[in-house]
């Protein structure tokens, strides 16, 4: 097997807070192959965005920092690159779509400029041409009237439109890998489908990779090749989409699956959230972070931290108990 496009090993990210150091991401390891779509799902606040940010070394400093780990992309450890080398990676070989489309666009610059910018810096395209390309990109992400919208400012766009602009920006330089942090939360299903199809097409065309962070398990089901489930800064289960949907093995994953509202169910029934509260990162429970909420929690859970173990061909999980099955 050829080595994966992206290989993350033992990534740990810390934040300094009033309450001391917290590990927002704790020893995360994952691989992404070229042409593959990896979905990252998990509880809100479980460290998905921070993991994504740290791949591009964009963790907000000074309060946050990457304290350990390796991010090997295309054979290079990104964490050891100097600024200039890193610049050549960002936006060019790895592009990122941020979760907050509203605040991630510069309010004082026109959309045209912001979308055309990557062309100009990485490919040296002259501005006029870059703007032309920007228009094409906006068309591809289905912004209506893209020509006129090039001169508009972010506040004149709806939430979904901004999100699509973010996506357009990421697509600009045909990156080898796209990290998309909840890219379609503000999009209606039709546009969402078009955009995700577009992303998928691009990844397959150029054999690039897509890391898709999302809460929409429908989207995961449709687009992901593999899935990573995170909880409290750690990966608790990973496997192919089918593994996860059909053979979910970690109690958290199973609970997650159970709380999806489904069109094929009666609306009068109440949705079933997971009991209890997500733990405080500053005071993680000892052992498995999920055990206080786990219906299957057993003896070792409260004492030792479970490691990811292989349970299927590409299926791993971090759990002591044989839940489930």
């Amino acid at each position, binding site marked *: 097997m050829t080595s994966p496009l992206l290989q993350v090993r033992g990534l740990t990210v810390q934040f300094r807070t009033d309450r001391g150091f917290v590990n927002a991401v704790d020893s995360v390891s994952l691989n992404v192959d070229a042409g593959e779509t990896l979905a990252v799902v998990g509880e809100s606040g479980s460290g998905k965005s921070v993991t994504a940010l740290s791949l591009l070394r964009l963790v*907000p400093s000074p309060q946050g920092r990457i304290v350990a780990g390796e991010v090997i992309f295309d054979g290079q450890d990104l964490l050891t690159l100097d600024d200039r080398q890193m*610049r050549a990676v960002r936006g*060019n070989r790895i592009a990122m779509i941020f979760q*907050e489309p509203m605040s991630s666009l510069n*309010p004082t*610059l026109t959309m045209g400029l912001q979308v055309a910018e*990557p062309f100009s810096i990485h490919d040296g395209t002259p501005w006029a041409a870059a703007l032309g390309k920007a228009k094409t990109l906006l068309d591809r992400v289905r912004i209506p009237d893209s020509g006129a919208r090039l001169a508009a*400012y972010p506040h004149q766009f709806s939430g979904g439109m901004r999100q699509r602009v*973010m996506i357009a920006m990421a697509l600009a330089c045909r990156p080898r890998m796209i990290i998309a942090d909840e890219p379609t939360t503000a999009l209606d299903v039709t546009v969402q489908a078009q955009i995700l199809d577009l992303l998928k097409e691009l990844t397959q065309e150029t054999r690039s990779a897509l890391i898709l962070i999302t809460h929409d398990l429908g989207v995961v089901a449709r687009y992901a090749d593999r899935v990573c489930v995170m909880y409290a800064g750690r990966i608790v289960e990973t496997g192919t989409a089918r593994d996860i949907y059909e053979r979910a093995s970690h109690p958290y994953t199973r609970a997650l699956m159970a709380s999806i509202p489904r069109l094929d169910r009666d609306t009068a029934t109440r949705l079933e959230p997971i009991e209890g509260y997500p733990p405080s990162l500053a005071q993680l429970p000892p052992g498995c972070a999920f055990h206080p909420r786990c219906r299957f929690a057993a003896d070792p859970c409260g004492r030792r931290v479970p490691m990811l173990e292989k349970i299927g061909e590409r299926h791993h999980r971090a759990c002591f108990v044989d839940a489930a099955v």
Partner: protein
Amino acid sequence: MQAYIIRRLLALVPTLLFTSVIVFITVRLIPGDVIDLMLTENDIGATRQSRVQIEAALGFDKPMHVQYFRWIGAVLLDGDLGRSLWQTTPVTELVMERLAVTFELGLMALLIALIVALPLGAYSAMRQDTIGDYVGRSFAILMLAIPGFWKATMIMVFPSIWWGWAPEVEFTPFRDDPLRHLGQMLIPAAILGTAMSAVTMRMTRTMMLEVLRQDYIRTAWAKGLGEKLVVMRHALRNALIPVVTVIGLQAPLLIGGTVIMEQIFVIPGMGLLLLEAVSQRDYPIITGVFLVVGVAVLLINLLVDLSYGLLDPKVRYA
């Protein structure tokens, strides 16, 4: 927006009229009126009769409102600012002569200030709490704390004593020798400019610190932009509103002149004109300078306000 500009331009008229009334009257209320001064300057035992005589000659025997309407009438109808009480030179001529020089000095100073302040402020913010930041801030603080007259005097005194070199002390009008003229303006402009740069630099720094924590700056980094572009294109502009305001506040210097620099570097500018006019109670000159400076201040402030809209598209004009 047009409506706003038009309203602002219209507001200029009552503002100036209102202020001009106040200036016109206060100037005449300064203790020690021009007649007193003329009498004392003539040095030779003046009497009550001399006073009445001079008052009549200068038209001060008329009631204040008549004097005002005469003056403002001439200003509005003929653009005539009156004549100097002492020299009988037309004020318009005096003011125009000075305006060019002062404006030039001010503009040079402003440019120097910006050239120093913006990069330094941005740099300091980018490298917060590093040696570079400390040096930059210390520079700004020194500029705040060392008065301009002090720097100017140092430059005037020491080089001539130690090395026999001295800045130009003969004012060369631009039309006589442009190069020499500009060279002469350079030192005072630099001193003024660095002094002006201090506040601007600190404003820039603090605003940049605000902006640099915004998400869209992270986006810019993620695009692979270099530091320069991130700062110049993405951050600076968002930080610029207060900075532009500070510059706008300093801009009246462009027109109003700076007495001390003019004095030390022998530049016949507006500041000295006004200073002399005030100490001689030459009312028409004071009011004339006021009108010119007033129009300039109002226009500069309008420009500053308009620039908000350019810098931040969300700003609306109501």
